[in-house]
């Protein structure tokens, strides 16, 4: 399936872009497995997505936990803990 992935704040600066389209392998079905998939892209990605850092996720503009399923066409976002207000 195809999804859109967005990165924000410190994570966006680390990976050096803000958005990409990804055609997911069939075994990637939730946020957890997507993080593991991204972590294999190299050192910067491993550092962000292998669990050493707190990375929050949203699917279609809703905060979700790592077990949330991903569906074709979803907009997935990764970002650090929020600091507004």
């Amino acid at each position, binding site marked *: 399936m195809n999804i859109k992935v967005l990165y924000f*704040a410190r994570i966006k600066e680390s990976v050096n872009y803000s958005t990409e389209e990804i055609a997911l392998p069939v075994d990637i079905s939730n946020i957890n497995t997507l993080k593991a998939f991204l972590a294999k892209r190299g050192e910067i990605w491993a550092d962000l997505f292998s669990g050493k850092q707190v990375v929050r996720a*949203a699917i279609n*503009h809703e905060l979700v936990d790592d077990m949330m399923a991903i569906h074709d066409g979803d907009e997935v*976002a990764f970002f*650090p803990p*929020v*600091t*507004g207000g």
Partner: protein
Amino acid sequence: MSVRVQTADFDVAAALAEMRLASADIGAVVSFIGQVRDINDGDTVNTLTLEHYPQMTERMLASIEKEAQSRWNIVNSLIIHRVGTLKPLDQIVLVAVASAHRGDAFKACEFMMDYLKNQAPFWKKESTPDGERWIEAKTSDTEAQERWQQS
């Protein structure tokens, strides 16, 4: 109930006057104004830049307002949050709640700020004399939100 996210400054006076004059059912208006401090973690802050996740921000702020409305008797509420680059003494956020009696307005306003701090997708980066740095989320903010889950 309304939510605004904008780069422009906002007029607290106009916002509060509009809110309180909307109905003579209103006996209490509680508001919170957040502004940029010139020192953070011991360092001088030159500017503060707020990034956000546009479609998600409005949605999350509206859901925070809705949750507050379900918990307390409130007549009206408002959230205005700025994004972009700000400097010390600039206003960042206004949260205001109007209700018949003060208890509801105080609780709903503080609740909205505590949830905004923990759930609304804003991120702050400060520019100091030593360079730029992202502000880390605070445990105290998480704890502030958790208080509301016990009741």
